[in-house]
């Protein structure tokens, strides 16, 4: 069993970069101004370096300019307009709600910030999302949600193909909203995800904020190489999933990315052993359950160190 220390996605912005953004973008709702490439590159390099120093092995770019969390993806697609602030799941965080006013199309690169990160570091995951973008947006254009979803899927698929052509090895699809999908939706979603996972890159489905019991066993048929489960919010239920279903590779969200409280290494080790003894995994990623941007930066770093320590003691 291979064990790899990783992170989920977003990360607190370096303090100087935060100040920079405040200066060039202001505090109001019209964000997304052009950011100097060199400045962004410096900030991303810093965040990747922090991950390395903490002992993380598979990195992300920290999503440093994802003002609207996963909904940032919508802001980079044609057809969407960003509107008033809405609460992001059960967090004290807000995103501008994207409203689909026209046909959704990819007219430019979605992950232009990831492209910069990939110049710095090759062992890095690109992060995208599909269903969550559709679900958390407001659709004022399509008469059927399904058509809306498919157009987002097509746009994301184009991005995935371009990532693959550039030599990217890992793509992670974050889908917290998928945990609340209705059973009857899962059939369409299977087709959507089969389209997205039809790539040579390693594909990781990341779920968080809740347990994933409602999407099993259907999700096993979606074509993902790795399935990520949140063992902070849904330990019991996700434990049952591991007991009941067989899959090769899993991402264990073991450390609470939304609380400054530091877990005990012993406790984490116990949980790791309990979960992995019940499954038959060839590959296990260990990570916080969510991105680390919910935490003050000093604690975000400590949480990554804890992940790295856990990897040491379980190997």
């Amino acid at each position, binding site marked *: 069993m291979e064990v790899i220390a990783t992170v989920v996605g977003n990360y*607190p*912005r370096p303090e100087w970069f*935060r100040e920079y*953004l*405040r200066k060039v*973008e*202001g*505090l*109001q*709702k019209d*964000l997304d101004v052009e950011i100097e490439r060199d400045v962004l590159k410096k900030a991303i390099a810093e965040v990747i370096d922090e991950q390395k120093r903490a002992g993380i092995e598979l990195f992300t770019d920290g999503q440093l300019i994802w*003002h*609207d969390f996963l909904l940032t993806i919508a802001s980079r697609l044609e057809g969407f307009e960003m509107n008033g*602030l809405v*609460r992001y799941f059960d967090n*004290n*965080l*807000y*995103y*501008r709600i994207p409203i689909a006013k026209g046909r959704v199309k990819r007219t430019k690169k979605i992950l232009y910030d990831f492209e910069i990160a990939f110049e710095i570091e090759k062992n890095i995951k690109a992060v995208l999302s599909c269903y969550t973008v559709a679900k958390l947006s407001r659709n004022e254009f399509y008469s059927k949600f399904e058509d809306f979803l498919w157009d987002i899927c097509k746009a994301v698929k184009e991005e995935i193909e371009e990532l693959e052509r550039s030599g990217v090895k890992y793509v992670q699809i974050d889908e917290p909203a998928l945990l609340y999908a209705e059973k009857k939706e899962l059939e369409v979603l299977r087709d959507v995800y089969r389209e997205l996972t039809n790539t040579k890159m390693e594909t990781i489905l990341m779920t968080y904020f809740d347990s994933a019991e409602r999407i099993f066993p259907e999700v096993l048929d979606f074509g993902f190489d790795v399935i990520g489960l949140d063992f902070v919010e849904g330990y019991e239920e996700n434990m049952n999933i591991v007991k009941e279903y067989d899959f090769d590779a899993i991402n264990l969200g073991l450390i609470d990315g*939304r*609380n*400054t*409280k530091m877990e005990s290494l012993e406790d984490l080790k116990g949980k790791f052993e309990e979960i992995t003894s019940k499954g038959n995994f060839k590959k296990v990623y260990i990570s916080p359950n969510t991105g680390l*941007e*919910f*935490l*003050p*930066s*000093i*604690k975000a770093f400590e949480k990554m160190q804890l992940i790295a320590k856990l990897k040491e003691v379980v190997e």
Partner: protein
Amino acid sequence: MKTTVVGSYPKPKWLLRMIKLHKDGKVDDKVMDEAYKDAVKAVVKDHEIAGVDIIWDGEMRREEMTSYFAERIDGFVIYGEVRVWGNAYYPKPSIVGELRYRDELAINDFLYLRSITDKEIKVPITGAYTIVDWSFNEYYPSKEEAVYALAEVLNKEFRELVKVGAKYIQIDEPAIPTHPEEIEIAKNAVEIMVKGVNAYIGMHMCYGNYRAIFPEILDFKVDQIDFEFANRNFEDLAILKEYDYDKDLGFGCIDVHSRRVETVEEVKKAIYMALEIVEPDQLYVDPDCGLKLLPRDIAFEKLKVMVQATNEVRKELGIAE
């Protein structure tokens, strides 16, 4: 029918400079304290000229509404800032030990204000539910327990405030409408906070879906609830009507998110709408929320319009000013 404010007021520009100098160690505590007091005098004068009936000190010493209190209560530490949206951050406190009363929270501010004005005073303090909701909880087994523990701390402060002469306390609870499923916890917390507190109690809530907290909110042990109405074009008044709202009403009728100064006529019209729901003596006319994000001259103009509109309605109804 009285006019009041929610709490914050734009800090004078010179004060912001002084705060920076103080942070950089170029101004000592004594000078800074004098600056704060002078700023409060300026703010009080603005309110007096505008003619507001019940005032507060504009929250010159408070940078925001969670960490200011957390820093003064045992059991909290602040590791740093977290993002709320876009480029907006706040220092999010962590609860790392038993929450205990340590320093006064608003008593000195109240006493100073009392010494420089004869106006009626309202003391706004962020409520237990909101502070806990906006903090990390490392210590208590549940959010509920943390909320109740903090409510006890605030109860002590409220009692002390009454002892030194405070007659009107406002509990700020903007987090309540964001978690309607936890309204029972918030309600119990208010009961703890006001236990044995012999004062008029208001509760301010801005932002969020009000419909989700009705009718439960009507059972809260407060004399008055203060809502924002202008921000959503007074549409939420329909909810109050629907549920036979019977508490005193804090009537937010000035939009704090817009720099456009309302006309006297439109504020009057709004006041008459509120009077369809409560009697004049139950009505407290105020802005939607604190005014701190507006330029000072616009905040001042808005207050003047609000008072003038109230005065004209009083005259038309034959109520004394």
